[in-house]
């Protein structure tokens, strides 16, 4: 910059040189633009302020805490607390209310449905489908055909503890493998019988009397007479057109020979009680209930 002891003006450009000279080449002293320098000064001042306010410099056994006492974990804890507080008026009402109170109170029900829909997208949609439509081995929740019961309490219990999950209070119920118990002919008859129960076509080899007898002996204990199902055991209704594991004969043979045990995780612990309540209301609204069980 100007005023340096080596002040020397370059003849071609009229600019001062720095006085440095290497092999006859002299360096022009072109100062940095003002805007650039001011930004540099400003960021330097900002950095010093930052070091004072926030945790910054490592020491022997810790670090400078900064005068604001900020910590990233503290900050997120506080933000979550704020969020909880912001939602408190509705969530605490939901938390305390019984299901019948929620269903009667339109405002609370709307809130539960909204919260339930959001939680469903994050946690349940990968298995039950975005709209609850289900997939092979993951039940459709859009129908009023509930395997484990369609009352809000039953749905809540299903969500909370899961089905064949690792939770000690999980719902359990087994579709046994019959390959060792029955012979191929009997299994074939039963597969036809199951299709008949569901109103589907049967093969010529199907003998109705034999099928019914076998079903009464082997299956009715869980699936009830006529295959109407049993929500206590999670044995699905077979006398309808809703199939969890496929309705073609090959799939049914597979179900009978090898058994089935589809699993739904427990959400207790991962989701809080209010969210599970909201989910119950939302899930029931998808399919509705035929009869109050």
């Amino acid at each position, binding site marked *: 910059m100007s005023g340096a002891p080596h002040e020397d003006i370059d003849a071609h450009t009229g600019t001062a040189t720095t006085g440095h000279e290497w092999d006859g080449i002299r360096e022009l002293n072109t100062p940095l633009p003002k805007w650039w320098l001011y930004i540099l000064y400003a960021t330097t001042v900002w950095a010093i302020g930052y070091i004072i306010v926030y945790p910054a410099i*490592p020491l022997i056994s810790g670090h400078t805490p900064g005068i604001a006492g900020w910590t990233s974990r503290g900050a997120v804890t506080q933000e979550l607390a704020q969020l909880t507080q912001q939602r408190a008026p509705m969530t605490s009402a939901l938390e305390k209310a019984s299901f019948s109170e929620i269903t009667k109170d339109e405002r609370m029900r709307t809130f539960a449905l909204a919260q339930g829909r959001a939680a469903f997208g994050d946690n349940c949609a990968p298995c039950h489908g975005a709209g609850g439509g289900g997939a092979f081995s993951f039940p459709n929740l859009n129908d009023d055909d509930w395997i484990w019961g369609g009352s809000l309490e039953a749905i809540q219990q299903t969500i909370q503890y899961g089905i064949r999950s690792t939770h000690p209070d999980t719902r359990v119920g087994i579709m046994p493998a019959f390959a060792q118990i029955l012979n191929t002919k009997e299994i074939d008859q039963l597969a036809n019988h199951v299709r008949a129960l569901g109103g589907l076509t049967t093969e010529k080899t199907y003998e109705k009397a034999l099928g019914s007898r076998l079903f009464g002996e082997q299956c009715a204990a869980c699936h009830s007479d006529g295959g109407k199902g049993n929500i206590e055991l999670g044995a699905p209704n077979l006398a309808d057109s809703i199939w969890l594991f496929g309705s073609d004969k090959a799939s049914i043979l597979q179900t009978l020979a090898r058994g089935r045990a589809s*699993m739904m995780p427990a959400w207790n612990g991962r989701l809080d009680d209010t969210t599970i309540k909201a989910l119950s209301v939302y899930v029931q609204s998808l399919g509705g209930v035929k009869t109050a069980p």
Partner: protein
Amino acid sequence: MSLWHKHQIFEKNSIFMLIGVLVVISIGGLVEVLPLFYLKSTIEKVEGMRPYTPLELAGRNIYVREGCYNCHSQMIRSLRDEVERYGHYSLAAESMYDKPFQWGSKRNGPDLARVGAKYSDEWHKQHLDNPRSMVPGSIMPANPWLGKTEVAVNEIQMDMKVLAFQGQPYSPQMIENAAKDMVTQATNDATDADGLAQRYPKAQSRKFSGLDGPVNEADALIAYLQMLGTLVDFKIYDGKANLR
């Protein structure tokens, strides 16, 4: 020459310049990196962490091999919306046995740090075979070969020896039982499940892929996915005492 003009020494000698640059950058680097090795706040010990079981370790190797980290992070940051969606923010200690760590920096898919126990094995199997069958709009690539590829049970011992050499607490007993433990963990109602759970607390054993036959890569990968984020019990973790 006044002190102010000493800088010419650096400007006129490229070797001095080079050494000077190295010294300055090293100081910057050391100040940033070294404290992480001794500061109490960065090496928090957390109850529940244990090294990977042989089967989980094999699964983790497959995770790295298939480049899952290109689309998935394993690091829940301490930000409100992340905690809301994925659960408790990740602790540094939760990746203490990850070499290299799988934090990742890209999220084409969701964070997987706490995906363990969120879905069923069956779901993972179907999802790995064909993600579109479970999530219609998914852009995740299918990995249908995993269930068809056997895991070289005897090779995992070598991996464990290397990790032990690097300081991971694999005991000689763990290394000796590596192949046996892997088969045990990939078996339904295995007889030695207790022995395994003793060596590796919270280890779950079952045929994860649901496929008959020897241990396959789907068994290993699903075992790994199902344990992610499940080792630390956050009911007893004292967040307030560990603010940082």
